[in-house]
């Protein structure tokens, strides 16, 4: 078996644009569940609404494509009602951090045994490129035509503070690292949150001088900084580029969790 066997081949090609990172992140997540040896008949994928949230529809398992922002609340019900099911959640930055922000912090607080993969493309993709709570200051979107002026959420810091047992950040460029991070998430009892910086060439790239898909990949490659290096620079009091994407594992702990098979 390979991760490709988890796909609903009869639904491909998918609806995502050419070069959209969502497809890559789907592959990496499926590679992780495959490596983990999970049974497709006992695995459920849950999502909200957005381009990213279409992912479960392409996976040949039980899946629940819910309402905007509410994936974690639905997943909480699934997992608590039947903890023997493996539950993975796909969500977008708008889905998770805007309309679903409250469910996000409470799912982390409950530390419920889910693996949450957030495809953070810094924008509302599905509705045509409006600003989201993670749109960086200065970035252009259809609702921030003069550059975003609101401070953005640091999703990783939020998940750590709210109590998730495992928190990591990678980009869609780091396919192997991402696969391993998801696998660690699957293995960690409690909530695992993996933020994946994703490219939306159609709605983010076009407006923000990352026109080519390969430009976005280059951007992720060059702007990423390993957490170890970031920590070292900070400890030494040396400057860190403001646009650095700090990647790596931020926390792994074994605080009491809910929804774990006794």
């Amino acid at each position, binding site marked *: 078996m390979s991760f490709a066997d988890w796909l609903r081949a009869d639904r491909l090609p998918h609806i995502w644009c050419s070069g959209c990172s969502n497809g890559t992140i789907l592959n990496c997540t499926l590679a992780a569940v495959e490596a983990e040896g999970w049974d497709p008949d006992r695995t459920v994928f849950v999502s909200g609404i957005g381009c990213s949230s279409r992912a479960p529809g392409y996976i040949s398992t*039980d*899946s629940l*494509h819910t309402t905007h922002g*509410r994936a974690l*609340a639905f997943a909480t*019900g699934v997992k*608590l009602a039947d903890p023997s*099911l493996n539950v993975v959640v796909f969500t977008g930055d708008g889905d998770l951090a805007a309309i679903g922000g409250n469910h996000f912090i409470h799912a982390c607080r409950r530390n419920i045994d889910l693996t949450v993969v957030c495809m953070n493309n810094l924008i509302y993709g599905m509705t045509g490129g409006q600003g989201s709570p993670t749109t960086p200051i200065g970035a252009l979107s259809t609702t921030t035509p003069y550059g975003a002026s609101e401070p953005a959420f640091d999703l990783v810091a939020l998940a750590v503070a709210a109590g998730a047992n495992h928190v990591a950040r990678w980009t869609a460029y780091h396919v192997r690292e991402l696969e391993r991070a998801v696998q660690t998430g699957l293995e960690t009892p409690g909530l695992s949150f993996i933020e994946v910086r994703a490219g939306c060439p159609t709605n983010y790239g076009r407006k923000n001088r990352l026109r080519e898909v390969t430009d976005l990949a280059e951007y992720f490659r060059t702007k990423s900084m390993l957490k170890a290096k970031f920590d070292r620079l900070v400890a030494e009091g040396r400057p860190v580029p403001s646009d650095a994407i700090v990647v790596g594992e931020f926390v792994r702990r074994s605080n009491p969790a809910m929804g774990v098979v006794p």
Partner: protein
Amino acid sequence: MQGNTASAEGAIAAGCRFFGGYPITPSTEVAEAMARRMPKIGGVFVQMEDEIASIAAVIGASWTGKKAMTSTSGPGFSLMLENIGFALMTETPLVIVNVQRGGPSTGQPTMSAQGDMLQCRFGSHGDMAVIALAPDSVQEMYDLTVKAFNLAERFRCPAFLMADEIIGHMRERIELPDHVDVVDRRPLESGHLPYEAGEDGVPGFPVFGTGHRVHVTGLTHDERGYPVTTDPVLHEALVRRLVGKVENARREIADYRVTNPDAEVVFVCYGSPARAVQQVVADHPDLGLGILRLRLVWPFPEHALAEFPNARVFLVPEQNLGQVAREVERHVLVPVVSVPKLGGELHTPAELLRAIEEARSR
């Protein structure tokens, strides 16, 4: 026993093993009873972060095959509306107990009302048919909660117990039956597509984790469950089936009580106002009054109105400005008089007698 507690007990008797909720007056005692009882019977109680999450968790739990419920009141019910539509579209069985209080907005948290009757009927967006029951006693809080589960499971849809504060907080002796008839959801047979409906318009249920690998989406979907969002024919067929499976069973599932079918002046009532009506009718046998008491309000049993062939006028006392009166009006040729009562108290006998007087002099 208190009405709200009776509802919780009825749910348990019907097989409910998952409760997700958020505290709100005057329904909180349902959640509190579930918090005490669920862990003792191998069920799950979870207090969610809000009512949107509550119904979401209940829907998620229902897909694992558990019978699931939430309880709330007006403000929380308003928050649930989007996901009620999701449950309708995805054909997820669940029960919502709404112990109604005075609205709009925060209104009168501790006072009774029936102002959400049309909200439950039409509140979520899109066309829909719903099942709503209205208890008029503590016993019925129990019995109709059981019934709500049975209907939800049979038709694969949300069922509402539209109680009100008076019934929810009332204390009465009730009889807990040794045996209740329980309907369980029909599982999806292998070889069938997940949304391939039988003759009754209801597909078998593919419980998560049993190998059906079903995709559940609130998007318009085909029989495989796959999204198909731009095919007008498919969309219409789906919505008509969802509405039809409930509407076509209107006569069969109708549940009402008829008193004095020869009457010329007939009350149509449900929930706590029915108690005031019954009192007045019992106290004035000389007035020749009839009662149609609805235990099930939606789908509206219009044929029940024909049980009163001599009716010259229908009086509809409600704790709202005439939400069900409007529905009665659609189905009869004689006058229909709404007898609204806002503020949270029951209609007084004097108020009902005055309404009778005015109706007779028409």
